[in-house]
């Protein structure tokens, strides 16, 4: 008879039916299709839950999935229960819209994703035919994903190799998920990877390819060698472990490093990097006259011991920690607080305090913003009238770990291991942070309210007790959780921390991080030279987080002292440190250098006379939220506005307005007419070529070439005592790219 009658029988025999169904259901059996284990990966692989499709925050065309599947039970609801019988139709499984859409049988904005005879279709069909069941009990979750090789080396372009992907589950089982993973390459001009994991070498170079499955992104290095069998490794001398590791890598890639830079270039480079200014005439003369073989190392030590080094690194930390002084009391960022914080940092750097202790003290501090400098971590890192734990946790992790966990606020990090659980547990370290009024209007007392509840998970509202990133168990209750956080964060075992510091120091001196950008550490942005970063990080731990020791190592390496002039084999290299990077001077260093060269001071509003540009931080008559450059020169030359903690706030690109400002703005022009150097030189009756030489050394830290000498002498002609001609030469030197760049 009709089906409905059968169905009626079913109703009548309801209890019996139930029992029968029970016998068929139960815990996960191997040949049963599980929503989480089998169906979700297909939705991921086919791209259904990608950000541009149904994984977007509001879904697509009325159907929403969680981005890359962070919310499996929500996805089950939406696929199966939201509109009964439509997306999945257990009565007539092949008529389920899920299948019709994916196979392109009906119009679909996302197009056809797989064919009717694919294994994906088969799996989905089988699941729907079984009634589209939800999972019961514990479904094994993926705990790690492994690519078949860590490194793929191609001897030539156009070669291919297939990668396979294995997923390991919490029940100890593992399976091949090559056909369920998604793939991408970081540089398609070096290597491509197709949907089935086949890698093709495209052109010489090195990059990483990645496979993504579940919430994991795993990468493998790909090296494609240049087709140059005649390559001979020049085997340059190695000053220390840094050279060993950089040269290992270069040799592997068949790239020869540039030559060692000359003494003048070295002196200018190291003075700009350690003292934040150009060298003086006297320094140049002394250094070039010095014949000791280790004079470079000696110079490095002298600069490290100089106050300027302390001033510079204080400025770098102050910028990173977003020190801005204001006078809007709820922000708790009064100028007095900013000064307290600034001078505290200065003291730490000056005394050579281990950087882990320096950070730990800030993290674990409480008290008055006006008198206890380090507590201003909680007022300055995020400028807001009320403490915002989520924003703070995100910035905290970006600054001290280089990790951007804020992605995990709304969904599991798409390209790293961080989950929403990690994020909200981490936020809970700061949910108790409060401010209360102090004894005077400008004062706020920062404290941790131990009774504050932890953050709640956004998907299901679950309270998430404080837990360190990547930790398994929450920190023990009772007491200020920040104490645990500080000791975990700055412990020698915490590689995230030491690698972050090492990478940032390296980037400061080399113009580029081993991980770049330095504050976007993630699985899909691996270091370009892993062993080098490991070694620097280990070294930092060995020297007890002493900043000067690591800086000394780097500056003494041949790698640091390489010329910027490329050779045939390394001219395409931009990331393996085979030659020095041309770096535009930071805005504040440029200003200090102009002052240094011209001998004419620059005043900064609200700061005493003689304050260097690097010692300046913005002071505002109001609140301190948002971007603040302070001095307009800094806006033009891209000094960090301190609007966010992002490393990208410091702009390194040259711009047209910078060129125009140096050419016709008051910074250079006024100083040339006001300075006394040229008059003094003319009075001393030196011959023109010596005056030219002095101007050259003063500005560019080198002697003019014979060609330059001849040409400039022609320019001066007969009027050897006309200041106008020398002023023009001085102006030209200050406007040259050679002056504006560190090379």
């Amino acid at each position, binding site marked *: 008879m*009709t089906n409905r009658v059968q169905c009626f029988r079913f109703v009548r025999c309801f209890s019996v039916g139930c029992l029968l169904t029970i016998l068929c259901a139960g815990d996960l059996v191997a040949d049963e299709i599980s929503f989480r284990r089998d169906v979700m990966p297909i939705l991921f692989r086919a791209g259904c839950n990608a950000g541009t499709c149904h994984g977007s925050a509001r879904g697509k065309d009325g159907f929403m999935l969680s981005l890359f599947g962070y919310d499996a039970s929500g996805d089950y609801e939406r696929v199966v229960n939201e509109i009964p019988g439509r997306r999945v139709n257990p*009565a007539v499984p092949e*008529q389920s819209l899920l299948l019709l859409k994916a196979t392109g049988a009906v119009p679909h904005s996302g197009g056809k994703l797989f064919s009717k005879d694919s294994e994906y279709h088969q799996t989905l069909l089988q699941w729907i035919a079984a009634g589209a069941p939800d999972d019961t009990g514990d479904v094994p979750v993926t705990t790690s994903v492994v690519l078949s090789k860590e490194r793929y080396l191609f001897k030539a372009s156009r070669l291919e190799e297939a990668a396979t992907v294995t997923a390991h589950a919490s029940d100890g089982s593992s399976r091949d998920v090559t056909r369920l993973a998604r793939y991408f390459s970081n540089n398609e001009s070096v290597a491509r990877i197709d949907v089935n994991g086949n890698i093709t070498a495209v052109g010489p170079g090195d990059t990483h390819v990645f496979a993504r499955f579940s919430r994991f992104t795993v990468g493998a290095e790909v090296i494609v060698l240049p087709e140059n069998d005649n390559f001979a490794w020049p085997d340059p001398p190695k000053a220390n472990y840094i050279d060993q590791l950089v040269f290992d890598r270069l040799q592997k890639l068949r790239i020869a490093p540039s030559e060692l830079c000359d003494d003048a270039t070295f002196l200018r480079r190291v003075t700009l990097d350690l003292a934040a200014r150009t060298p003086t005439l006297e320094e140049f003369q002394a250094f070039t006259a010095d014949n000791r073989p280790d004079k470079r190392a000696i110079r490095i030590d002298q600069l490290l011991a100089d106050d300027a080094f302390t001033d510079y690194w204080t400025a770098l930390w102050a910028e990173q920690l977003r020190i801005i002084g204001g006078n809007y009391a709820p922000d708790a960022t009064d100028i007095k607080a900013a000064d307290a914080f600034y001078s505290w940092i200065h003291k730490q750097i000056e005394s050579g305090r281990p950087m882990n202790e320096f950070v730990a003290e800030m993290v674990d501090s409480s008290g008055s913003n006006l008198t206890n400098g380090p507590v201003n971590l909680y007022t300055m890192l995020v400028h807001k009238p009320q403490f915002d734990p989520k924003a703070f946790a995100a910035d905290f992790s970006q600054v001290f770990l280089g990790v951007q966990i804020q992605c995990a606020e709304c969904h599991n990090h798409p390209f790293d291991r961080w989950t929403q659980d990690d994020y909200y547990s981490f936020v809970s370290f700061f949910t108790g942070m409060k401010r209360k009024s102090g004894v005077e209007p400008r004062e706020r007392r920062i404290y941790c309210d131990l009774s504050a509840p932890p953050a709640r998970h956004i998907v299901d509202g679950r309270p998430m007790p404080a837990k360190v990133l990547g930790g398994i168990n929450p920190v023990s209750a009772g007491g200020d959780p920040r104490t645990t956080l500080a000791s975990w964060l700055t412990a020698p075992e915490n590689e995230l921390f030491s690698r972050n510091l090492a990478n940032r120091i390296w980037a400061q001196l080399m113009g580029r991080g081993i991980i770049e950008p330095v504050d976007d550490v993630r699985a899909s942005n691996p270091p370009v030279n892993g062993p080098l970063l490991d070694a620097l990080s280990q070294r930092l731990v060995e020297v007890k987080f002493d900043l000067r020791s690591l800086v000394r190592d780097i500056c003494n390496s041949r790698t640091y002292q390489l010329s910027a002039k490329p050779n045939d084999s390394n001219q395409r290299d931009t990331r393996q440190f085979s030659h020095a990077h041309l770096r535009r001077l930071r805005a504040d260093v440029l200003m200090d250098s102009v002052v240094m060269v011209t001998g004419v001071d620059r005043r900064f509003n609200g700061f005493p006379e003689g304050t260097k540009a690097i010692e300046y931080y913005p002071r505002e008559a109001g609140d301190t939220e948002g971007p603040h450059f302070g001095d307009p020169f800094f806006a033009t030359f891209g000094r960090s506005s301190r609007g966010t903690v992002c490393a990208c706030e410091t702009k390194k690109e040259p711009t047209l307005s910078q060129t125009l400002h140096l050419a016709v703005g008051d910074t250079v022009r006024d100083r040339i007419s006001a300075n006394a150097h040229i008059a003094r030189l003319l009075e001393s009756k030196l011959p023109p070529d010596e005056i030219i030489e002095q101007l050259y050394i003063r500005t560019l830290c080198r002697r003019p070439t014979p060609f330059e000498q001849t040409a400039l002498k022609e320019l001066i002609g007969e009027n050897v005592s006309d200041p106008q001609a020398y002023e023009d030469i001085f102006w030209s030197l200050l406007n040259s790219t050679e002056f504006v760049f560190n090379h």
Partner: protein
Amino acid sequence: MTTKRLTLHTKRTARCTMMLLLFFAIEANGDEKISVNYDDHIAPIFRKHCFQCHGESKQEAGLNLASFATSIKGGSGGEVLIPERSNGSRLFQAITAEDPAERMPPNNDPLPADDVAMIRKWIDTGLKENRGSAAVPARKMNFVPSAKAAVDGPAPLPENLPALPSIKLNRPFPVLAVAASPRGELAAIANYERIDFINTVTRTVIGSVPFPEGEPHVLRFNSSGTVLLAAGGRPVQHGSAVLYNVKMGSRLAEIGNETDAIMAADISPDEKFVAVGGSGRAIKVFSTSDGTLQQTLVKHTDWITAVAYSPDGKLLASADRVGNIHLWDATSGGVVLPLSEHKGAIKALAWRSDSQILASCGEDGLIVWWEISKGWPAISKPEAHPPVRPAGMYGKIANGVLDASFSTAGELVTCGRDGQIRIWSADGSPKASYSILGESTKLNQKRSVRIVPLRSVFANGDQQILAGDSAGQLHWQNVQ
């Protein structure tokens, strides 16, 4: 076995009702103890946040909240407080508006949640002036059931419908639609590519008509029970509506040719029009005599999930997936009113037989009885079908109300994702509830396919409730 199950149901229902009564009694007592009033509780809030602009010295918009009398009187725009209707009270809307530009107090943080709750309680408990005063009387609901269609005699039953070839289904088709004849012992049930007629007394299938168009999403009898409207189709392929002669099983009309299955449909009381809607976002009104498109009503911004003609034939109500309801003039197609209260997809619309009340329910867990003459909620029941929260589970649980349908006497039956069928008296108070999961609830929790009731209607002259679930099963319940 059926009998045994029904007895169990009845016992359980009785027990549930008793427990419910007990529960409400307790809650009422609790209310009396707190007894929010203007003098003790509300004036301090108004003083702190409102008097500056709506007080003795200044009356913005003519509104003075500094005394009970002037507060009740309202401003130049009329009353701002309606007893027992916080959601309909202008004042409450103003302090809870999500848009900061609309919200009171202007250019300021919203009122503290406690204060808002206090004001809500004050309104909903009848706007008492002081500790001793009685509540301002709420509007009475003037409900007069309208007469049945003026047709005498028993409902026509299908006679000798030809047997249909059986369709092999993988498992029973979910009961997407159920309709009960307004005149007696007949119900129509949606099945895959067919519609089954059931004798509601014997509870057996007495015939089926084919629906080769696909899946019937909507079934509606006309007021005399002689014609059945079926609408549906195949997802993203085809949609149409069909009118059947109930007695003969013959097709009277085939209406519409949509590109997606029709999800909402109704036939006008004068049987001249069929209105349909679906993922196309427009409501199309077709002539039943020649199938021509008469009107296209455009206002909804998402899928149309329900349409319903008022029994007096004057209005057409339509609802969509983002929670908007629109009322249209059934003849001209002109816009009459928007009804905004729902925050999620609306699943059903039902008119009371006097055309004065429209009920709506949806995935936001809310049931609203709309007072059509005023355009505001006469009664609104949030969390009308609250599911039991499993131990250790946090966050939102799906608590949607999936269907709502009136009896001739004005009682409402609803079903929801909590697995319950609930009956609500004409005044909106809960009357009875029972679970379709019955004694199998415990077993069901272990099963990995959740069964939810999709449709619930009064049947057999309001003597029974007939519900259908997502596993293709029917559930009967006698009504006292």
